């Protein structure tokens, strides 16, 4: 099943299980969304529960706040990550704060789906990495799946929470296929925390979203040289699974964080700090970061230079492995 199908299936199940769940956004109805994530859902659940809004992101999020106040569970979509910016006022000032402002009386069970990150050579604002911005906002939770199985389980989980979750879908992975454990097969699967997707003993690569698959490729290549790399899919960007991180790095004693977002004040810094706090004594080298740069997300032709590629990640690994105390 592709990630697109997995997300679609998860939404269908959430909508079936919770009659108060609603899907709203631009073109999510008849068209099924520009990425077809909501394909067929309007037909299945009706125009009252899956509906197109006018083209206004602040409106979509502000309306979701009111729907949540009326006892619904809105699952809004913004069409592309860069178009979440016009909704930021509602997301930060309202969605993230209403539970607090109302002393817990007005929970905001809103799952905002955001097609995220680059890698599809799209025009400006169709590829952005907003995770650090959202993770910095009190009251929000942020999660990003790395493949179809994660997508299915994380979305089902997020969309049944009583707190707002920003659900960042790596759009470059939408059509990637993989096994998805549904129904009885899903038993025992935990949608919380991080997940070790490949075991290793020499170094931990920490990544999320589309970077997880790339890190797995890197680990394959490194294995040819006898370097055993552990790949940790962070999954939750807020809250970050500090225990899982520490457990992995305590074992490998070295870590490299990989993300597409700009480097300065990116989540890599947060991850590195958590690792340092928890594993300082056992670390053999400072935590390295391989990230995007402090530039606006570049055009398609430069994307390959911007998004961490295999060579840059390998080089980061080398820096850590060869680190000598000064």
């Amino acid at each position, binding site marked *: 099943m592709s990630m697109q199908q997995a997300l679609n299936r998860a939404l269908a199940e959430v909508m079936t299980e919770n009659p108060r769940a*609603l899907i709203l956004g631009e073109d999510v109805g008849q068209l099924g969304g520009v990425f077809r994530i909501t394909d067929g859902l309007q037909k299945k659940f009706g125009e*009252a*529960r899956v509906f197109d*809004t*006018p083209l*206004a992101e*602040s*409106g979509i*999020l*502000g*309306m*979701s*706040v*009111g*729907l*949540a*106040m*009326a*006892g*619904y569970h*809105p699952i809004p979509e913004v069409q592309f990550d860069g178009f979440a910016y016009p909704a930021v*006022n*509602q997301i930060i*000032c*309202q969605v993230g704060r*209403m*539970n*607090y*402002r*109302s*002393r*817990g*009386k*007005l*929970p905001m*069970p809103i799952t905002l789906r955001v097609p995220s990150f680059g890698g599809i050579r799209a025009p400006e604002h169709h590829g952005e990495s907003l995770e650090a911005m959202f993770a910095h906002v*009190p*009251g929000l*939770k942020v999660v990003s799946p790395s493949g179809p199985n994660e997508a299915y389980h994380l979305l089902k989980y997020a969309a049944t*929470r*009583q*707190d707002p979750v920003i659900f960042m879908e790596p759009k470059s992975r939408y059509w990637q296929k993989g096994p998805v454990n549904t129904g009885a097969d899903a038993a025992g699967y935990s949608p919380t925390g991080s997940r070790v997707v490949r075991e290793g003993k020499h170094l931990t690569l920490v990544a999320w979203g589309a970077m997880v698959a790339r890190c797995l490729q890197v680990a394959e290549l490194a294995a040819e040289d006898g370097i055993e790399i552990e790949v940790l899919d962070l999954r939750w960007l*807020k*809250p*970050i699974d*500090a*225990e899982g991180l520490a457990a992995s790095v305590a074992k490998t004693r070295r870590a490299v964080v990989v993300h597409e977002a700009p480097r300065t004040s990116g989540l890599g810094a947060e991850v590195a700090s958590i690792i340092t706090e928890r594993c300082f004594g056992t670390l053999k080298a400072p935590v390295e970061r391989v990230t995007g740069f402090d530039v606006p997300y570049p055009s398609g032709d430069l994307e390959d230079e911007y998004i961490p590629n295999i060579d840059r990640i390998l080089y980061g690994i080398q820096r850590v492995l060869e680190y000598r105390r000064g």
Partner: protein
Amino acid sequence: MADVLALDGTGRAALAGEELRELYRLMVAVRHLDESAIRWQRQGLIPGYAPQLGQEAAQVGSGYALDMSRDFVFPTYREMGVARTVGVDMVEYMSTHKATWHGGLYDPKASRFAPIQAVVGGSVLHAVGWAHGQTLDRTPAGELGVAITYFGDGASSQGDVHEAMNFAAVMKAPVVFFIQNNGWAISVPTERQVAGGSVAGRAAGYGMPSIQVDGNDVVAVTQATAAALAHARAGKGPAVVEAMTYRRGPHSTSDDPGRYRTLEEERTDGGEDPLARMRARLLADGIADEAFFDEALAAAKAEEEQIRAGINALGPRPGTEMFDFVYQEPTQALKAQASAWREESEHV
């Protein structure tokens, strides 16, 4: 004042006797509490307050028209008069001005009065979402709960207000957009704020009815709001009421209106005092006498005493609450921060 686009039906029979007296009592209570709150700020009982001197008729009249068994209010930071009219606990309301809790201590669900909102235009969209929820609940037309959202002429410049009006009109959501055009957004007068000079005038562009009403006439405001509510309740979609009023005092207790207008201008532009006007009307129609006015004022003073005592008794919230209401399901990281805070503060 002319209807920009008249609302069909009034939704409420002409107000009589006891109703008119009640409107006056409410206005006196609100005026007295408002003036007291300014005094409390000067005395240091509360750090700040947003007065509404001159807006009593707009607030009381619109609040009085609501059916609080099914309607829901989305206020800004200046709707004390509406809150008082619809029965919000005034100590819990004032707690926000005491800096006890943003949004106030009252339960917004039980009181059907959303938390106090500091972002201008911030809750206008929420009203649309809530109202659309009433439609989704399949409430029969004629019984719909209506969201009433309050905002000022300044807030009407916000893009969210346009989005809200457009969404509501497209979705036929039962919303009443209630604008208190009090002439000023802090120091900027309406003519430098609202192109075309009227917010109600915009409604035509969204295909919704609107009415501009004399905001100093509490009866007219009640009637206009009732008509708008009836329109929305019947499933005909949103409506706009623009109450033309005047903010007589400062914008907030830290404002200095002397920098942008003169006392002379305040006197001439202010229009009729809504309280004096209602009083004259009650007297002229033989509905009330001096004894009634004395009683109403005495009741307002007694109420103010009680509220003052309540605010005085409000202690600071326990520090743990800072962490308690961020999430329904708190994160480990936040729990760790809470216990670190406890440890650090108990340590010293």
